[in-house]
């Protein structure tokens, strides 16, 4: 089933050169309950140095998308991947593993959610850091250590030259996340995938890490895809937002207009269901009723239709493609015009 049709690039004007261009990516997993459509015909592009937020709830396919970009889905025996992932004009899905290895960790790096489990506890920070530097940049061990210490200083690890001998358990959660960022940036990647980079951290530490990531991405001119369920995290950091639901992108657009006037009912519901510190208290939260669909038994039409207050017969029959709804904005909703009209009425009021 062809969903998105011909991919229309976001009309951003400046994004003529693309770093990453994903076209019609689908990832399916074979399971006992049937085929799980984890990522379903997803297309989007990232420009060099751009900060993009990929937002969605658990099981919406955001982490699987990142796994596919890193070329790790090929390691999974039950995964079927289709589509194209063009990175610097080469389709990563078509490259042999030996070529992907030169990209993974060097050109595309990843920051994982949980700094406690994603750093090997039996390796010192020195070993963890120099492994990639030696492999990808071909430096001698001494030069690699010097570079590693330099990186640790950049991410704000005090006494880096001494602490590089330590093991992950000797660092606190926030410091471990800094080490992870240092490892990710050590080979000057063009693209950084940050999968829930601050979810395991406390709010005061989260502020430190977000600031650090934003500043370093500018310094290293690296594009970042921030994958998160927390709308607050991407609001302050990303220029462009992609909202995913049940394996599909349901809305895409520049951050400000998207947050102020969402063009998809799921984004509307998501924003309304979160209490905000800068707004007066309300008696009741507006919640999205119901549950996200089972990815192995997706409804035939729009997967949000069972929970949507705008849904009509049309929505239950065919899945909507991503329609262009404005400057760089797309929405996968048949009733997007109603939301656009509502927004216009709000502006004039």
């Amino acid at each position: 089933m062809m969903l998105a049709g011909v991919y229309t690039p976001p009309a951003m004007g400046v994004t003529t050169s693309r770093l990453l261009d994903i076209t019609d990516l689908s990832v399916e997993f074979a399971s006992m309950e049937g085929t799980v459509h984890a990522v379903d015909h997803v297309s989007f592009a990232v420009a060099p140095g751009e900060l993009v937020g990929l937002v969605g709830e658990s099981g919406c396919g955001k982490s699987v998308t990142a796994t596919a970009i890193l070329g790790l889905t090929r390691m999974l025996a039950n995964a079927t991947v289709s589509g194209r992932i063009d990175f610097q004009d080469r389709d990563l899905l078509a490259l042999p593993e030996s070529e992907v290895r030169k990209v993974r960790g060097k050109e595309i790096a990843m920051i994982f959610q949980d700094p406690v489990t994603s750093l090997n506890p039996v390796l010192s920070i020195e070993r963890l850091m120099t492994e990639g530097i030696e492999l990808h940049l071909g430096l001698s061990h001494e030069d690699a250590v010097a570079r590693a210490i330099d990186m640790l200083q950049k991410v704000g690890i005090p006494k880096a030259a001494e602490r590089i001998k330590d093991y992950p358990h000797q660092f606190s959660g926030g410091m471990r996340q800094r080490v992870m960022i240092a490892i990710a940036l050590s080979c000057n990647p063009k693209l950084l995938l940050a999968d829930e980079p601050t979810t395991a951290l406390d709010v005061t530490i989260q502020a430190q890490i977000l600031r650090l990531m934003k500043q370093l991405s500018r310094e290293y001119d690296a594009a970042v895809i921030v994958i998160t369920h927390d709308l607050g995290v991407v609001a302050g950091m990303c220029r462009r937002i992609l909202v995913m639901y049940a394996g599909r992108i349901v809305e895409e657009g520049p951050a400000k207009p998207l947050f102020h006037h969402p063009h998809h009912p799921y984004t509307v519901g998501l924003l309304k269901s979160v209490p905000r510190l800068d707004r007066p208290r309300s008696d009741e939260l507006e919640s999205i009723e119901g549950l996200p669909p089972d990815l192995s038994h997706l409804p035939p039409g729009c997967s949000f239709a069972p929970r949507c207050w705008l849904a009509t017969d049309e929505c239950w029959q065919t899945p909507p493609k991503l329609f262009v709804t404005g400057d760089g904005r797309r929405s996968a909703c048949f009733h997007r015009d109603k939301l656009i009209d509502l927004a216009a009425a709000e502006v004039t009021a």
Partner: protein
Amino acid sequence: MNAVDAVRPADGRGDTLVTVDDLAVHFPITSGIVFRHKIGAVRAVDGLSFTVKRGETLGLVGESGCGKSTTGRAILQLIRPTTGRVLYEGADLAHLRGGALRRQRRRMQMIFQDPYASLNSRMTVADIVGEPLLVHRMLDRSGRRDRVRELLQTVGINPNTLNRYPHEFSGGQRQRIGIARALAVEPNFIVCDEPISALDVSIRAQIINLLQELQRDFGLTYLFIAHDLSVVRHISDRVAVMYLGRIVELAENAVLYGEPMHPYTQALLSAVPIPDPEAEEHRRAVVLQGDVPSPADPPPGCHFHTRCPAMQEGHCDLESPALKEVRPGHFAACHLINAGDYPRIRAGENDLAVVAGSPAEGGAVAAVSDVASEELEMGSSE
């Protein structure tokens, strides 16, 4: 000690349901294999005093490891306090044992954080929700069945699913089952320990609304423990902020969020990201440097002085501030708050103040290097 001894007048104020008086929970750190001896203590909760009024929601916020969950468990006597008293309607729970404690527990229940871990996967929904009734010998078999159906209906679960097992339900539905179990014995007081943190964003609002609805319908009193400051603001009448085992500030909701006085509360509130790019541009976050010190070796004086931008040497690092009433109904523990005057923590100005070491990091002194500091400053000034 028996239950009769423990019955005392309810703190002079009729509206107080729970009184926590100088509560401390210290976990021993032991060494040795055959001969274990105590070499230290993790001071998870270190001298808390507060009250919970009948019918209110008291929010308890703080970062991980600050002792908020331990406080909740110590109030219900799931962890025995090291020192201090917990008065429930005037009765000191800390001295109750066996049957007397169990009878009191009928009035107090708990909703747990993780709906995947807190429901026994080998029990059916009927058994899970009905178990408290069995423990308290409240109804016969058919009465329990009816009550379980009624409870499931109340929390929005189809009563016909009572013979199913927890794995057949989603996270949000499981949390509803956990709530039904807590309601089974008709408690007055419920400790909600991070009841929504494990749930998806779109499900959280459903559970918050359910908790508020139940409070209205059954006149429940909540101690709502959470790390999410926006959620606590939404649900609470009064809010207590904890840092490293102590309450640093406690006030009415609107007061605490409107005019926080303690430097930690100010920093914490400014660090909460707002889901609005426009608001984010204008938000000036106080970025606290360093990490929370280890509760096994808390710093002397004010526990927050190692990260406090307003810290005064020779005072804050030596003397521990008491929680005092700085304005009517507004309590704060800070030396620098005097007669309602308090240090205003502004972003960018003080947030590069000296960083003190975290003992959790092997005692290394974590002072951000000059280079990194400047870069961080650049990052903030944009």
